[in-house]
């Protein structure tokens, strides 16, 4: 399973990561080796096996719809890198 640097770039884009050309080469090599290793799973017949979607197979763990104390707005805003009043400030999100 040989990943090209272009394929690595596509994956990086999905993951919102920006890589240098050297990083793309290096990761292409390393990821290819790991994916090769993963392919050994294909030697197993799992046609009649259902996937484990949860370690304990718990279902529908709910709580009563009661309002309880949570974090204050002040606490949350104190963690934000840049605020504008009560808002989280970011560079413009859309073109134009």
């Amino acid at each position, binding site marked *: 399973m040989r990943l090209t640097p272009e394929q690595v770039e596509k994956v990086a884009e*999905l993951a*919102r990561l920006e890589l240098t050309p050297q990083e793309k080469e290096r990761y292409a090599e*390393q990821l290819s080796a790991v994916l090769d290793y993963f392919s050994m799973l294909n030697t197993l017949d799992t046609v009649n096996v*259902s*996937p484990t979607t949860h370690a*304990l197979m718990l279902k529908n763990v709910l709580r009563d719809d009661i309002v309880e104390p949570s974090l204050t707005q002040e606490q949350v805003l104190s963690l*934000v890198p840049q605020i504008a009043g009560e808002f989280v400030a970011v560079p413009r999100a859309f073109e134009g």
Partner: protein
Amino acid sequence: MELYQLTAKDIHVGLRRKDFSAREVAQAHLYRVDDIDHELKAFITVTPEKALLAADKVDALIARGEVIHKLSGVPIAIKDNICTQGIPTTCGSRMLEHFVPPYSATAVKRLCDLGVVIVGKTNLDEFAMGSSTENSAFGVTKNPHCMSRVAGGSSGGSAAAVASGQAVLALGSDTGGSIRQPAAFCGVVGLKTTYGLVSRFGLIAFASSLDHIGPLARTVSDAAWALQAITGLDPRDSTSVAPNIDSSQPLAAGVKGKIIGIPKEYFGPGVDKDVAEQVKRAIKVFEGLGAETVDISLPHTDYSLPAYHLIATAEASSNLSRYDGVRYGFRASGAESTDELIKLSRSQGFGAEVKRRIMLGTYALSKGHHDAYYSKAQKVRTLIRADFTKAFSQVDIIVTPTTPTTAFTIGSKIEDPLAMYRADIYTVSANLAGIPAVSLNCGFVDGLPVGLQLMGPALSEILLLQAAFAYEQETRFAGYQEG
């Protein structure tokens, strides 16, 4: 004996007898940190003022003649991916270098309510991704038994802190072996519980179906005390379960009549022969104590590492998508759009191993690959769970080496991700199956500790600790070891 060499049990007895004060105990550990940690680098953040404040509170209770909990005044260290209110929690990453959580993890809160003294936050592989604590943005933690060797990972700091007497107990996290492997490398006890037994609320997520918080200690008894304190249903963690553990049962129940399974797949060409030798000697000790041993097979063992990495990286790619430089954590400068902000913050904030795993997971979940990789791994996970269910219908406990080798030298595997991943071959299965597993020291090879791993069916923690205790009492590997 120095105060920093005492167990939690010793400290509790000594405090009640007024042999020493909680402040003296805390101070001894803080001096120990000052003394050795600039070299060892087990800690990212040390909290001396908070520690002494907590110790003074305990002393005040004792002065008033009040009964104190057995963990009151005990110095503990907390892995830096576990939230501690008001104390920086970095995950060993530039991404959270200045992050100070506004709340504490449930496990931390439970311990603090009992009066523990927090010495500080320990070093780890970034976002718990690694097996050597070489992937931290804040330095490499050394092995107290040999400074040119790794402490293991990702809870390397916690294991090293406990092994070197800088803390009596530590909390670590285990997703594929990250408590047990460093515990084995550093010669201490490390316990990963049944999935859901310890609340994950406040554990900064890596792979949600595989993550566990658990204790590290120098003795089985201390680990058992910590376990009692941190387990229990937590409404804040929808995957938590109420413990069905009868903690009134004594640790000293022995192993007479217990059936121990020895899986052949863990004693094949993959394990170092000296390590296997030490573990086989340990098995003889169990036989001498009245246990019966049976050869068993866990046929899908070889598939557990690739299945683990596929599931873990897929879940990690999802969990780490929250780090975008917008609401908290590192924000890159110079971005002209939100999209650029997110890309730059993530690219500059994350280290290489984290990026590698995010990309692997993203790839495994992407269109056209999801069935071949992620779904396939989930099915293999079912097969691995079935191996254990079948084994536990014949045996009570499974005994294996914790790791294939003793601690490797710093730098020897960091360039080869696959070689690094193989350090976890014997530990990942327990995370996939959700079953409890404990590692404890069973000897040394060339001065480096060897870990013995015991695994049991879900919610069999007491049984495992009883077996571990029986072994520990029979041999001389417990307590403080001069490195």
